[in-house]
């Protein structure tokens, strides 16, 4: 934040505290430290309680969001975008005009067209055509809003992933989840407002920057929660200290800090006392929410989740538990979707069948579960990779028995569900070979503008002053895609 705005907020708080007769009492803290938002178009978080709930700029369609990021980028042409003509011309050289002047990560020369090896089915009333790699999603096709005309500017994983989540391919900008929690705060102070869950054992391509806070205060960065070890780093008391003793020691700490507050009258001391109480409550609430063994056998089976394990299935179930408890933004990252064909796990036939099974079932279960609990209507779910994959065989593996595709930025598919997006909608299309968007292109910045719109923000007005400029997620671009909205 602009340091003067920061100072101003402190000032406001000090002014209020200073004007209280009888000094500072913890009782009135909650009231005093609530965010000041009246009438402001851009939310102004309170420094004392930066995650306090703040209203968006206009009535939102979604109050919370879950992102399933398939790290590496799944082959859209084998999951969501059926191209019979591509299959018909399988093995032919790519037409010159499709590759002229383009650079690819691992392919040079003239590669061969690669048709899908999947079977396809028209699903639900919408007739959405989906491949046999994702049979469970067939069931919920009428709840999906499928965009087949996404495009991006980047074809390397890290820059592309940063573009998706920070609006810029370069490091240093705040991520989507941090913008959203900056804008809206969080409904449960006893849990982090922005939670990150990682499966398949590998970090996002952008490291912690994919869920970082950039130049926003670090309180808005994603907090990684885990199934093993401390569910949140350092949430457990040290060995030898039980909860009773922690309470006893915090009581002493609070008393000493109160002495300090009375001595100096510094509002930051009062804030700190509140943070320690929050931390104490988190110590109970975080392990609770992260314990999926409390779920019914039926629910666990629907997701394919295993208590004590670590999987995308577990994380999908945790995502539901977290949003149910008022967490604002849950970001799932699942590694292993980089289908180059350099090993059997990256082959678009059996490799994809296997990998997709770990995602398809829990993703469908998540949508159904959210719906059953009445959460889907105001929970926005997005499933995406960093970019698409080529309609041709990847250069390095073209002579091998494996079938894989290279990185491709010009067109790909993502889907959304819930909070304010049209269910059963198929939006946009690619050309007959899947090389370019044929209708209704949606750029990453357009998608971001749309997501923020659903959450109640004009993307041009959710801004933060840094280095003399009002920065925003969509940089200077982005148009809301109104056709996607209910």
């Amino acid at each position, binding site marked *: 934040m602009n340091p003067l*705005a920061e100072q101003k907020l402190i000032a406001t708080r000090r002014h209020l505290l200073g004007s209280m007769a009888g000094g500072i009492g913890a009782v009135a803290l909650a009231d005093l430290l609530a965010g000041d938002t009246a009438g402001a178009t851009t939310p102004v978080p309170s420094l004392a309680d930066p995650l306090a709930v703040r209203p968006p700029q206009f009535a939102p369609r979604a109050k919370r969001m879950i992102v399933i990021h398939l790290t590496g980028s799944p082959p859209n042409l084998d999951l969501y975008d059926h191209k019979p003509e591509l299959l018909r011309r399988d093995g032919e050289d790519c037409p010159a005009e499709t590759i002229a002047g383009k650079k690819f990560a691992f392919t040079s020369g003239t590669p061969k067209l690669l048709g899908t090896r999947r079977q396809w089915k028209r699903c639900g009333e919408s007739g959405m055509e989906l491949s046999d790699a994702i049979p469970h999603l067939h069931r919920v096709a009428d709840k999906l809003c499928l965009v087949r005309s996404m495009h991006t500017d980047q074809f390397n994983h*890290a*820059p592309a992933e940063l573009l998706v989540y920070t609006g810029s391919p370069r490091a240093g900008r705040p991520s989507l989840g941090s913008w959203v929690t900056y804008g809206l705060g969080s409904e449960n102070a006893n849990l982090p407002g922005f939670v990150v869950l990682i499966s398949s054992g590998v970090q996002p391509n952008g490291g912690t920057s994919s869920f970082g806070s950039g130049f926003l205060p670090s309180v808005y960065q994603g907090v990684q929660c885990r199934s093993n070890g401390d569910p949140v780093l350092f*949430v457990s008391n*040290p060995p030898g200290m039980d909860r009773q003793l922690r309470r006893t020691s915090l009581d002493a700490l609070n008393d000493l800090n109160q002495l300090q507050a009375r001595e100096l009258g510094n509002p930051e001391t009062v804030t700190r006392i509140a943070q*320690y109480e929050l931390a104490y409550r988190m110590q109970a609430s975080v392990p609770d929410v992260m314990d999926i063994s409390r779920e019914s056998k039926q629910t666990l089976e629907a997701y394919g989740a295993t208590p004590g394990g670590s999987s995308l299935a577990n994380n999908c179930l945790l995502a539901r538990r977290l949003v149910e408890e008022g967490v604002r933004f849950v970001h799932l990252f699942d590694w292993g979707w980089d289908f180059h064909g350099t090993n059997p796990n990256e082959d678009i036939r059996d490799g994809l069948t296997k990998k997709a099974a770990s995602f398809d079932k829990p993703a469908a279960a998540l949508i159904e579960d959210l719906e059953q609990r009445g959460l889907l209507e105001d929970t926005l779910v997005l499933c995406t990779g960093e970019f698409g994959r080529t309609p041709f065989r990847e250069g390095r593996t073209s002579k091998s028995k494996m079938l894989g595709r290279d990185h491709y930025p010009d067109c790909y598919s993502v889907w959304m569900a819930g909070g304010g997006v049209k269910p059963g909608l198929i939006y946009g299309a690619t050309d007959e070979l899947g090389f370019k968007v044929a209708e209704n292109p949606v750029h990453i910045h357009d998608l971001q503008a749309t997501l923020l719109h659903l959450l109640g923000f004009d993307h041009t007005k959710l801004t933060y002053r840094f280095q003399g400029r*009002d920065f925003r997620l969509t940089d200077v671009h982005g148009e809301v895609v109104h056709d996607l909205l209910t």
Partner: protein
Amino acid sequence: MVHSFASCRSAATRSRWWYLVGAGVSLCWIAHGQVVKAADGPSFTRDIKGILSNRCIRCHGPDAEDRHGGGEHGLRLDTFAGATEDLGGYAAIVPGDPEASELLVRITDTDADLVMPPPEAGDPLSPHEVDLLRRWITAGAEYEPHWAYVPISRPNLPAVAQKDWARNPIDRFILARLEDEGLQPSPEADRATLARRLALDLTGLPISPEAADAFGADPSPNAVEQLVDRLLTHPGYGEHMARGWLDLARYADSAGYADDPPRTIWAYRDWVIRAFDANMPFDAFTIKQLAGDLLPEASLDDKIATAFHRNTLTNNEGGTIDEEFRTVAVVDRVSTTLSTWMGTTMACAQCHDHKYDPLTQKEFFGIYAIFNNTADADRRDEAPLLTVPWEPVEAKRRPLEKQLAEIIKAVPEMQRATPKQQPQPAAEPPELRPLREHADQLRKRLAAIRPVTVPVMTELQAAKQRVTKLQYRGNWQDLGPVVEETTPAVFPQPALADGQRLDRLALARWLVSPANPLTARVIVNRLWERLFGIGIVSTSEEFGSQGELPSHPALLDWLASELIASGWDLQSIQRLIVTSATYRQSSKPTADLLARDPENRLLACGPRVRLSAEVIRDQALAAAGLLSSKKGGPSVHPPQPDLGLKAAFGQGIDWKTSTGEDRYRRAIYTTWRRSNPYPAMATFDAPNREVCTIRRPRTNTPLQALVTLNDPAFVEAAQGLARRMVREAGPAARQRAGRGLRLVLVRQPRAAELDRLVGLYHDSLAAFRADPPAAKALATDPLGPLPDDLLNHYGGDATHATADLAAWTVVGNVLLNLDETFMCP
């Protein structure tokens, strides 16, 4: 011609300030702008420029591509000439005649199609703003150059009524303003507070209670100055100063992006520490880092210093185009240089002319051209690398080299290398074969000792130099005309000899030329910010039109001129600040002061600033008696929880904890992995160092509480602190609690505090007596078993000792979590 300013199509976002004021949040008496001293009549700099900059300049400013309205070149309101240009019988501004000024007509128009700014670009101007503009135009509409671009002159010291308060010129500026506002400075802080403040501010380490007591008892009138001198020469000084600089340098021990492989560049970090320890003049410090390799007879150290700009990211992901990410690195070097030295955000001009300041895209690439001819090119091996001698490596090499030298001396044939695929040279007598095998073995072992290297800047040879072209919209593949090396025209130009190229060396010299209006201001402001928590210019990262005005402009200029006059002696400026009466004030504000100047911008009381992530860790380890004073060398791995994750396309991110004293090194030596920064530090607002960070935020969060309560590194510190309480104080609980408090807070404990700490100790002790396994865990995990000397305090009764130490650990844990502990007092 249509009598109109074309409508502003771009959606200019309104300043956050406007929202705050509009929302009625601004309750305090020092409203925006009024931090700057008020005078009669509207002043362009104080009253007008902000209105124009925030409300008009985005569409009527320096960016010619995106300029709206007006004549052929669009209307410019950022210059007098532009604003008064004849637009066909009328002008936006007619000096002295507000009624004839189209600007006033348009900002007060009630027609949505005509009013400026257009409704989609922002709310109408407030009556107060309109009134200011009207009065300013009436008075002649005088434009003033941007304050930060005006040459630095040395202001006279203001007169003050209170003659005996000021200790040095700084105080005159502060006091004059306080007197204007009818405020009194606060009394001097007590000696213990001052001792802790000075030690933390100058070395980032706590002072011992004994040293603080000696300072407290020192009757010398120069006691403060003497303590300051001791701290400025303390071995911890350079490490503490380096921390801030390494944020600017985006120093890290990994290369960035997805796989984020380790990078060996710590020799640069050590160079920075040595430079601060030696109080290297800031001009030399600048020149060496930007162009040490171009200095005549450049020393090894001069070349190491150039690693400043090798801290840019390298993208090692498969399938990346090196040239793309080389250009990304060069862009970063331009932005970082301008931000670090001139507080100027040049990044916007990568894609288009600056919206608010007179900086063009062509000028961006003019500086880009200066940085565009180094040999590095986003290569995985980080070439070019410089080998750096390092004693532990030399110590391994020496005996082997000695043996080899002896062999060669005895049998000169051994100088010849062994031919490939052959046991020995053809002509060599077979009886020499064992000796040759031995020599080969030595050579092999020597080759296996990996030298310490550091990536450096080296200039491409003339024949290989790159031609710089403007990149449209900042796209490295969409190239425009050739751009020559230049510095922005708005600043005084570098002095070049005939035919001399504007290379990195010339650029560096230009940055620290006394004629450069920004560098000295930016640097003294940063020194001020380190000590007071907020700069004289609060936006220390932005000195352009969109930055804030200085709270004490004359003081800033006086300090800047003093820095230049001192020969860029940073310590002399720091010494001035910390020995001033201003700095020495108590940080306890009166209720009246809290209400009147809640941000303490006027400095009627001393600073109270939350410590940095690094100092919070170092202070805890120092209080525990665990902190290692070892300086320099490879970065280390203090305890960090295992996450069981790998970096994308990379290696596991968990590390093996360093052993011995490397477990307890100062935080500046902790391995800084960009994709996964050390959690305890990241939680306390340390950046990931992917980009230049000028100012860290200071948040206050429950996750921070969890770190200092439960992170094993902090639990270990509490255990160490507990052991010191028992070892270093008398047997009474009050003595031990008091010792613990002093080891952390330095000052004497208050009775109520001792009561509470002793109460906690007794409660904890009772709990641990009933639960010996818990006592053992809390007293010894992870610090280790209680040593004999501690057991002796308990007559060898291990059970008793363990319960007691566990109870003191609980107390230590509380002491390390006090609000006061986190604050520089």
